[in-house]
């Protein structure tokens, strides 16, 4: 049972509202899509959910494994610690970390990152190192022990870094923009596998609707900061309002 529920969530910049969401909930299905025309507020909503952006008002509740988390008072690192993680739309990365170090960073527990631990010999467990090796063998990087150089590698690394955190729910903000087609397919297969194996939930924001229709079980349609329609992909696809909003009627 997993539920990320939003109530009366709003965000305004300089008194200009970009999002005003009465009610929405994510996580009932393993892969859900969030679509909508430009400026609908999709990225803003993702930022609000992971507490990168402070909301103007509203509530965000994350229920997972019978625990009930109010996300509003938390900061973004605490949200990540309880298992709600987001991949980035814009290409981001740590330019001075190698690909392997970047993945290691994601799986290092806080106890190994204290001042005291500087002098201890404790290393990452073999299981974790094996997991990193596994990822690096299945997803091809030019130099796994060097740096992610191309935009595609950086984007892939960003996604893998989130996956290796083993989140309960993963929000993906335009995961395929900048990824080569074959890597996109590989990533989608991997997350589909993990939703089954680890009981992970995925919410994808994507403007490549083809991908939404083929992978999502449920689709939310956001327009002008409000959830206008939601349902199974075929229902959303067949809905006249959706086509009209995309074409601008």
């Amino acid at each position, binding site marked *: 049972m997993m539920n990320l529920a939003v109530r009366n969530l709003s965000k305004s910049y300089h008194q200009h509202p970009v999002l005003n969401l009465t009610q929405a909930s994510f996580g009932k299905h393993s892969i859900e899509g969030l679509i909508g025309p430009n400026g609908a507020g999709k990225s803003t909503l993702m930022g609000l959910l992971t507490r990168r952006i402070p909301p103007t008002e509203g509530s965000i509740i994350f229920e997972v494994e019978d625990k009930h988390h109010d996300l509003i008072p938390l900061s973004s*690192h605490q949200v990540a610690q309880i298992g709600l993680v987001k991949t980035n739309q814009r290409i981001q990365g*740590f330019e*001075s970390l190698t690909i392997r170090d970047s993945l290691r*960073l994601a799986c290092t527990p806080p106890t190994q990152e204290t001042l005291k*631990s*500087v002098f201890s010999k404790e290393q990452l467990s073999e299981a974790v190192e094996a997991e990193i090796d596994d990822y690096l063998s299945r997803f091809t990087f030019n130099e796994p022990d060097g740096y992610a150089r191309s935009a595609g590698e950086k984007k892939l690394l960003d996604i893998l*870094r*989130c996956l290796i955190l083993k989140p309960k729910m993963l929000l993906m903000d335009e995961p395929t923009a900048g990824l080569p087609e074959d890597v996109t397919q590989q990533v989608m297969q991997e997350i589909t596998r993990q939703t089954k194996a680890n009981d992970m939930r995925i919410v994808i924001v994507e403007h490549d609707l083809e991908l939404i229709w083929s992978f999502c079980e449920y689709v939310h349609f956001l327009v002008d900061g409000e959830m206008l329609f939601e349902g199974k992909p075929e229902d959303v696809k067949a809905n006249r309002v959706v086509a009209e909003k995309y074409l601008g009627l």
Partner: protein
Amino acid sequence: MAYLIFSITLMLVYIGLAQLLHIQFGMLGIPNFGIVGFWGLGMYSVGVLNVQWDFSFIPALILTLLLVALVANGLGRLILKLEGQAMLCATLAFSAIVALLVITEKWLTEGVVGLGTIKYPFDAGAMTEPLYFLILLLIVVGIQLFINKLHVSRLGTLIFSIRDNEELAASLGKDTVKIKLELFTLTCALMGLLGALSAPLNQFLTPNMLVPSVTFAVWIALILGGKEHSMGAVLGVFITFGLFDLLIESYLPVAPEYAVMVPNFKLFLYGAVLVAVLMYRPRGVLGHSAAGARQELP
């Protein structure tokens, strides 16, 4: 000979400050332009406790460490969330405030008259100064060992990730605010410790020791040596302080009429070298860290 020992000991102080700045700026990305403030606070705190209030050296040292750590922690809470330029200005302003208060609070610091005499914590006769040199050497070596460990530790990886992209690190569940504050407090307190240990070295403290040139000398050394390299601080201070303050000012036969110009020439060259390094070799003489062979920026 006594002067040489004084000079090398002072050089160790500068090496220590540059090493700590390496952690703050080179690794963590905090542009601390208030070095002289923390160092000066430590120095004057020991001076006041020792001379005005008759504390013996070790208790004075401990109280000083606590004081500087407290001040650094408070300042850190105010400024560590700011953008780089704002942090730089705020720390510079902090050091100016320390220097001003040392002048105004005569009842505590004797103002421009100066505060003295601070004695060495022990008396070993002719061996006092060399022994003191050894203590500082141990501290500097200790800091260096810590830096070397830090570079290859998991904490080091986290620190680099915060410098590169703090928001992204936080989104991976890292409490970046706490780490930054802890490290800032620790390194600033150690700057205060170096200040405290400089008090007996200088023996007589005056406000004009707290000029921003101290901060800049440390910065120039670190940028020149290589801000990201674990040995950059050491090399940088050897080149700047070692070359000018040790070799040229003390040993090069300069005609007396030119001797007064040497410090000014030194500062001019500091500026020129800093500009040249930033324009042509922004990563300093040593470049990036040998430990992690870090990536060249585009």
